[in-house]
């Protein structure tokens, strides 16, 4: 015990020293490396969509992501979709798009994955809010489901609007209903909820109900429409963006959208900031750093959450 105390004091001294050097003293000692964790459990949301749970206390806010390392294979940024502080659990939702996500989807209880983070600028909620609308397209619903949990815990009413091509791709319907959110689904084929898009549902909702903030995550064309609707109703709005990332630490510059770094300045942005970004809804960067149209970007399978 004594030794531990002495060590703790020594650490304090180092911190004192570091304070003179840099504003954020702990950062000098921070180690951004994956913590390899055993998978606590895997829950199938839908065919091809699994939520992987890990047992670890994580100080994460909704909208943040972790970098998930498959040892010897790849590392991918994935939104945190679930946190259970009481039971020290957190989860990410993975879905099959490419080689890496196929491996992630095949992971079973007891499997090992490396986690570093949480990273990124989160969504913000305030206690003054009474009612909020969340608009999730495809896997974009992942960070929003965590946001819904947090908002409901603060006593905020949540409209959880979720959309996908078909019923079997809609995420978190039961979980959100159970949690007490008003769930409004939209499918392109009408197999569940309204036939059409999440933005149609949002428009209808705002015709009858007042909300304090709109949050959106999904394809950029959807988020652009949501921002337009928020403008029409003079409402604040936050969206979460996605770009191919490398470091997650705000240094490599790979995830630039205009001069913003999506890994650090984002992924969550206020709509006013988004409107200053000429790349938003139009361009993204490939692994080489080449700026291409979003359509071409998506064909490279670099996106993590917008496939529907």
């Amino acid at each position, binding site marked *: 015990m004594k030794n531990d105390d002495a060590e703790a004091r020594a650490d304090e001294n180092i911190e004192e020293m570091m304070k003179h050097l840099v504003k954020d003293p702990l950062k000098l000692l921070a*180690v*951004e*490396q994956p913590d390899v964790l055993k998978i606590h459990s895997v829950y199938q949301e839908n065919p091809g969509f699994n939520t992987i749970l890990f047992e670890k206390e994580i100080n994460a806010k909704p909208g943040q992501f972790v970098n998930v390392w498959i040892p*010897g294979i790849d590392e991918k940024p994935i939104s945190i979709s679930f946190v259970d502080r009481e039971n020290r659990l957190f989860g990410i939702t993975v879905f099959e798009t490419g080689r890496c996500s196929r491996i992630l989807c095949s992971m079973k209880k007891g499997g090992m994955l490396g986690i570093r983070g949480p990273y990124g600028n989160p969504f913000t909620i305030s206690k003054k809010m009474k009612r909020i609308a969340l608009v999730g397209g495809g896997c974009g619903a992942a960070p929003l489901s965590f946001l819904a949990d947090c908002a409901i815990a603060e006593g905020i009413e949540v409209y959880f609007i979720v959309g996908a091509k078909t019923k079997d791709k809609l995420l978190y319907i039961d979980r959100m209903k159970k949690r007490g959110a008003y769930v409004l689904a939209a499918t392109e084929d009408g197999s569940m909820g309204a036939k059409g898009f999440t933005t149609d549902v949002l428009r209808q909702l705002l015709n009858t109900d007042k909300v304090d903030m709109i949050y959106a995550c999904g394809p950029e064309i959807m988020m652009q429409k949501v921002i337009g609707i928020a403008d029409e109703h003079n409402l604040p709005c936050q969206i979460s963006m996605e770009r191919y990332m*490398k470091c997650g630490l705000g*240094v*490599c510059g790979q995830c630039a959208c205009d001069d913003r770094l999506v890994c650090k300045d984002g992924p969550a942005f206020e709509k006013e900031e988004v409107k200053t970004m000429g790349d938003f809804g139009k361009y993204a960067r490939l692994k080489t*750093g080449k700026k291409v149209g979003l359509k071409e970007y998506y064909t490279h399978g670099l996106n993590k959450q917008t496939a529907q």
Partner: protein
Amino acid sequence: MLGVSLKNIRLSNPTVLASGILGVAGETLVRAAKNGAGAITTKSIGIHPREGHPNPCILTHKHGLINAVGLCHPAIEDSLKEIEYILQNSPSPLIVSIHGKDAEEFAQAARMITQPASVRPAAVEVNISCPNVQDEFGKPFASDPILTKKIISAVKNTSRAPVIAKLSPNVPNIKEIARAAVNGGADMITAINTLGPGMIINLKAAKPILSNKSGGISGPCIKPIAVRCVYDIYEETKGKIPIIGTGGITTGEDAIEIIMAGASAVGIGSGIYYRGIGIFKKVCREMEGFMIKNGYRDLDEIRGIAHEK
């Protein structure tokens, strides 16, 4: 107080955004310039597009960073568009870093980048010292004086902008390499590139974490090596060749230290991880604070004074 000249390039302050950090997009480079960087350097670009190594390619450890990004960049036509954007929007001079697999590729890249008079960068930095592509290209050119001279003179022949040789610390005698670079026609030297390469093994996975297994070490832990390399190069070149002292510079005092060793400007890269993009202004403020307190009027009074007997 902090203004410096690198040959005929005037910098409002000696901080230079080092190559490889925030250097993918023209917009983020301009952001660094607007946040106080005295000059900005692009990520190394070459003739043929490269995706770089798979993730993970950047991590931190207790004493700094480790990276093996693997020289990713788009095709040179695309890079030229970014350069044009930067030149139109950056308040600070632009240095374009280039790489290649041989002297020909380096020379071609330098020609293409400095050809159009309307979009000519202030200087071309020749990256002959990347430690992360050895499987593909063999040992970095900067490990060998003959290759160093060959590449630099090839670039010098085609470049219409001043040529900066970026040297590696991973050599037994950096003076010899610096001499070769100068003999090849280098107008300036950047020292140093990342150290190593090093490796981090995750104990639970029992595997190296970086996809490339090894990667270049940067950040505070390499500063003493950077300072010594700059000291050696300054001695070898008798202070006649401007040196951009790079490696672990995080504070104003670090910057003063490497200038005392002989640097004319200071590169900042990993420091952005520790102090954010505001680091350039912070370092400048700290340098000014030191200079005022110690009665220095400009950086000429400090440069190389560690050598005086």
